[in-house]
């Protein structure tokens, strides 16, 4: 009796752990950190002031909301996939923001050289 009881306890424990693991995977929260941090980075980079970057920032925000909606409906896989879109748009918004600043600085530098040469001919 004691032996059966001991095995039973072990089986029960394994079952509980397995159940917990399965239940944990099924109810894992949506990982939106990468998307939200990407969106924040784009905003800090001044994406709102650069037309093309602003467009992708807006798309990222919309995609994040869509992902949250899908997650709420239990469509975890679609939600995760949508999050990938949001991350990609947010990253592109950051790059376009920086690219715009870099382009402006390059043009200013070239103009500065041209002006210097013209002033010292």
């Amino acid at each position, binding site marked *: 009796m004691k032996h059966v009881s001991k095995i039973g306890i072990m089986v029960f424990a394994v079952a509980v752990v397995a159940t917990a693991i399965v239940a944990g995977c099924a109810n894992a929260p949506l990982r939106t950190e990468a998307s939200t941090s990407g969106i924040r980075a784009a905003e800090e980079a001044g994406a709102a002031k650069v037309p093309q970057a602003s467009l992708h920032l807006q798309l990222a925000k919309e995609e994040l909301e869509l992902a949250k909606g899908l997650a709420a409906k239990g469509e975890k896989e679609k939600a995760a996939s949508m999050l990938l879109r949001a991350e990609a748009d947010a*990253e592109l918004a950051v790059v376009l923001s920086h690219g715009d600043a*870099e382009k402006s600085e390059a043009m200013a530098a070239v103009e500065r050289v041209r002006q210097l040469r013209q002033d010292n001919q």
Partner: protein
Amino acid sequence: MKTLQFLILVTFVALFIGCATVAPNELVNARSAYQLASQGSAEQLVPAELHKAHEALVLAEQSFLKDPDSQKTKDLAYVAQRKSEQAGALGAMAADKASKDKANADFRKKQTEIVKQGKQDLSDSEQRTAAAQAEIDKQAAVKEVKDKSDAEFQKQQAEIVKQGRQDLSDSEQRTAAAVAELAAIAAVKEEERGLVVTLSGGVLFRSAESTLLSSAKVKLDQVANALLAVRARNLIVEGHTDSQGSASYNQGLSQRRADAVRDYLVQRGYPTDRIQARGKGKGSPIADNASPEGRANNRRVEIIIER
């Protein structure tokens, strides 16, 4: 290289799928975006980013092969498109940065050249200024010397003039004193040819002789003393006779007597280069030779003190 692999993959996919399955718009856009990015500066400047885009596109293509119409395939293709656009943007950004860096380097180089040229110009200007200053100093020194010389000259001139005036005044005083002294011992007359001192021939010489009498020497000593006070003047000693005797005799006698008087005055200290003797014979009478008094007056020696 990656572009070639991508094209091979696309061709492979197209061969196997053919017209049976149409790629979703997301995948078409992703392929186009990747091709565009790989044709730009991304492959050279940001190859890692282009590689990421390539991997994302491979994942999308694999998903398309496995499940062409799935949302996952569309999402992966969408991500691949964004990664490709990102690579393209990063490539352009790197090109802009390179352009900026080059412009900044050019700017610094040009600034350095300008500063160098400015220093050279400044150095040249300083040299020119120093040369000009040296020239000014030189001219100032020359002017100072000239001014000093002029002042010295003017001072000397003034002294000379002053001394000249003083000498003239002294000379005039001496002359006046001499004239007064001469007037006391002989006949003195102011004429156009100068001051004429007339000594009687009878006082100086025996008749028909040219040797000075002892009494004549006393008289001539007085005359010499007076003349020595005005030794700067030229003297002419003229001998004159009366009309008796031949002209040549009288000429010779008058010359000898003039010489005798001159020699005596020189002996007494009068400068020899300032005194000359002339025999005038009987040609310049001052009285009538018809009477003994007249002839006595004509026998004379005249000492002319030139002006």
